[in-house]
């Protein structure tokens, strides 16, 4: 449940409609129910259209880069520890209400995921397009100026990026 909620919120952050992912329970004896679920699901995806073309999805290439950064972010240590901690807290409280899970994910896991994704994406962006200024980076990654500023600061401290007259380049 935590994983599925994280997925939904991560997809939203990436700019993919969360409806593209579904989690359902079917017992081994419920073949007709399985058929019904699959049929409904396929028709709902058909109405959404191909990946990147539904409402709020910014076109194939952009989504593709968001996803590439997202995959890297989802493997990041920070995000995984956040998930583990949340699972531990939920276990301790013993309350698995969907709303509580959703709030927990939004508060504890998503900020780490978003920061990690933006950081990965800035690097991907610079590698693809060469040197960029901050505004175009914000536009490409979908982050705010403050977020980008903070991440660019950390990355340049690590010696991965350098700034020359407000233009950023990979080292």
């Amino acid at each position, binding site marked *: 449940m935590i*994983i*599925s909620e*994280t*997925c939904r919120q*991560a*997809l939203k952050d*990436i700019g*993919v409609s969360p409806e*593209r*992912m*579904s*989690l*359902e*329970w*079917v*017992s*081994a*004896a*419920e*073949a*007709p*129910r*399985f*058929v019904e*679920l*699959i*049929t409904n*699901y*396929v028709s709902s*995806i*058909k*109405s*959404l*259209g*191909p*990946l990147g*073309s539904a409402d709020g999805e910014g076109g194939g290439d952009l989504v*593709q880069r968001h*996803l*590439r950064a*997202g*995959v890297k972010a*989802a*493997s990041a240590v920070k995000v995984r520890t956040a*998930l583990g901690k949340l699972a531990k807290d939920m276990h301790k409280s013993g309350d698995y209400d969907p709303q509580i899970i959703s709030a927990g994910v939004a508060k504890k896991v998503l900020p780490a995921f978003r920061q990690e994704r933006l950081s990965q994406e800035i690097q991907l962006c610079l590698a693809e397009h060469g040197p960029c200024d901050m505004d175009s980076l914000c536009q490409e990654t979908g982050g705010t100026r403050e977020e980008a500023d903070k991440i660019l600061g950390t990355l340049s401290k690590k010696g991965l990026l350098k700034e020359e007259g407000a233009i950023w380049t990979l080292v």
Partner: protein
Amino acid sequence: MTTEGFNPRILGFLCHWCCYSAADAAGVSRYQYPSNIRVIRVMCTGRIDVRFILEAFKCGADGVFTGG
């Protein structure tokens, strides 16, 4: 791109003990269901990770169906 004639590629993560058996039973009893779904059998739905699902979308899936 038009949505007419659009055949979505859907990746299904099905639990070996529940949904996969249901899919199997559906096949045996000859129920018709759309053939858009490509199935990956996992031993338990708990095995599935955020990374798997994002990776599926990255590799060009239009939807991911998880069945437990």
